[in-house]
């Protein structure tokens, strides 16, 4: 426990957290306003245009029928990982440093999943029939095709969304209770409902502990399966460059990688603008940095494998695919990705960088830019270099697509901004657990009598 937290008392934690909820500065409202505006202008407006005009609004064509929408989908799903997943792993291996950051990490999972879901809506040609992909009894007596990787996705993501929602909620019940007592008006009523009448009796703590652990155990394999399945959307095709066994681990690692980087970014923001300097410390950045290095190495390794197998296969399809990726139309993006995801993270080998906040922010952002590029390349390069050379083409995203990418970022921000005002964005009771509990002996109260 770093020295600067020695002075902290239990009550300070409540004060800080409650302040972060109820005390809202002008900057917050400005930020929220901007975020909402950008969401409407850059996401919903282009989307409605596309709904009217058709996917033609995007840059897609034959052969590149998939585009940035799908890339964004994978990206957000990826970002969602390591929120809940990381928190679960750390919970089970009960590592102390998790406790200050896991709440916001889980929130990240939740919201990026929501954004990912909307990306699906944007992607499909007839979103107004999207519900046909859900298994529900209907007058057509038609059911979805459970043999389809896409349907695995539907199931997995629904489960993951439910799981993370429950996990984050259950973890914050005691905090709702704590906040409940300190708030008034509508907030009070809301927290009364959310806290389910939590009193913090030993029985409740005991049950919560059990349930929470079980959830954690369930969610870890779930999270792994989710991104494996997302990878199967591609790997189950026979498109050269996609049809690879390595894809599932590749995606999972990539997901956790970008997710962790995302956490770093969010940590930075929370620490800076929500006044959690005492709770989110060098320690967290240091540990996350180490984690990032490991992930970046694994990710690089898998990339190299991909190249090697492609080159070693010697088949025209695989080889052309590879050549195109490395030196073709999209080559600059590829090397940018390598730079951001394989080279830049190595900076974090130095402890000084790991423990200094701003560089970490930059690195984490770089990593996520790189990871988005990776997803884009996976979608773009493979489709335009398939089996029949006569069908080769190129794909360039349209303005609509780009603005929707920006818009989705804004949507995420909006959701997060709302979150920090409703959820205690650091866990009160777990912070307290990390602090030394009051010692036996005369308390101030007795002294005054």
């Amino acid at each position, binding site marked *: 426990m770093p020295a600067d937290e020695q002075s902290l*008392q*239990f*009550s300070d934690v*409540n004060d800080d957290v409650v302040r972060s909820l109820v005390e809202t500065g002008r900057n917050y409202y400005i930020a929220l306003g901007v975020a909402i505006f950008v969401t409407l202008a850059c996401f919903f407006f282009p989307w409605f245009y596309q709904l009217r005009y058709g996917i033609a609004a995007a840059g897609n064509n034959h052969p590149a029928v998939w585009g940035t929408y799908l890339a964004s989908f994978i990206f957000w799903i990826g970002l969602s990982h390591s929120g809940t997943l990381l928190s679960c792993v750390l919970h089970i291996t009960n590592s102390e440093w998790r406790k200050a950051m896991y709440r916001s990490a889980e929130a990240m999972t939740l919201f990026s999943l929501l954004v990912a879901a909307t990306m699906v809506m944007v992607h499909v040609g007839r979103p107004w029939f999207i519900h046909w992909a859900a*298994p529900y009894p209907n007058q057509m*007596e*038609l*059911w*979805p*095709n*459970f*043999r*389809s990787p896409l349907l*695995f996705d539907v*199931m997995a993501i*629904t*489960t993951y969304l*439910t*799981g993370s929602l*429950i996990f984050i909620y*259950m973890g914050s019940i*005691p905090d709702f*209770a*704590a906040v409940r*007592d300190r708030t008034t008006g509508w907030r009070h009523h809301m927290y009364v409902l959310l806290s*389910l*009448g*939590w*009193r*913090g*009796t*030993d*029985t*409740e*703590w*005991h*049950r*919560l*502990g*059990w*349930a929470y652990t*079980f*959830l954690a155990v*369930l*969610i870890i*394999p*779930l999270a792994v*399966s989710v991104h494996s*399945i997302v990878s199967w959307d591609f790997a189950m095709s026979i498109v050269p460059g996609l049809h690879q066994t390595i894809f599932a681990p590749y995606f999972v690692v990539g997901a956790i990688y970008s997710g962790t980087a995302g956490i770093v970014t969010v940590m930075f923001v929370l620490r800076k603008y929500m006044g959690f300097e005492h709770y989110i410390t060098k320690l967290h950045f240091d540990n996350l940095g180490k984690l990032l290095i490991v992930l970046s190495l694994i990710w690089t390794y898998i990339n190299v494998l991909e190249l090697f197998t492609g080159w070693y296969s010697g088949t025209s399809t695989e080889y052309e695919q590879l050549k195109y990726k490395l030196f073709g139309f999209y080559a600059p993006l590829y090397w940018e990705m390598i730079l951001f995801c394989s080279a830049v993270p190595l900076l974090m080998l130095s402890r000084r960088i790991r423990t200094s906040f701003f560089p970490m922010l930059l690195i984490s952002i770089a990593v996520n830019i790189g990871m988005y590029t990776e997803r884009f390349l996976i979608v773009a390069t493979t489709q335009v270099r398939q089996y029949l050379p006569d069908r080769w083409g190129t794909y360039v995203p349209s303005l609509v697509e780009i603005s929707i990418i920006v818009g989705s970022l804004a949507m995420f921000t909006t959701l997060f901004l709302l979150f920090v005002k409703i959820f205690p964005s650091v866990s*009160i*009771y777990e912070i*307290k*657990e990390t602090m030394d*509990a*009051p*010692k*036996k002996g005369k*308390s101030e*109260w*007795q002294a005054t009598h």
Partner: protein
Amino acid sequence: MASNALGLFHDPESALDAAGRLKDAGFARPEIMSPIPIHGVEDVLGPKKSVIKRFTLFGGIFGGLAGFTLAAGTAVLYLHPTGGRPIIAIPPFLIISYEMTILCGILATVLGFLISARFPAIRERIYVPATAIDKFAVTVPCDSGESYGRAETILRTAGAEEVQRIGEDGP
């Protein structure tokens, strides 16, 4: 008339100590309210068993079966031969049931938690807001004024900063 004795403590040790003494003194099982989970409660007040794990287990099993049945059943309901695969294709359906296992597992766990922890609370219960911040409370039901007296003395000697008498239906 029945009532509850509630002692507020400054630190977990003394709260636990008080709870132990009350138990030894033949009181009904005292309840401890704390801002953080206290370790060692079981040693003092005896082990607790939770039904949650069963919920999780059976939820999972049910989910697995339900998942496969859903996939296979609907496939048979409306025959759509695709890709030369069998109508009932094992590997994909296993994935479906895998996801369903986890989904139902999670939901069952939540259910188990709510039931075993008696949530949500319908009627008012004994509660002291301070325990949500940094105080540790021990409550014990007392059937008579006399027994309340005893409880109070035990609490005080254990180092309670404050002892309240609270009616059955809340303060």
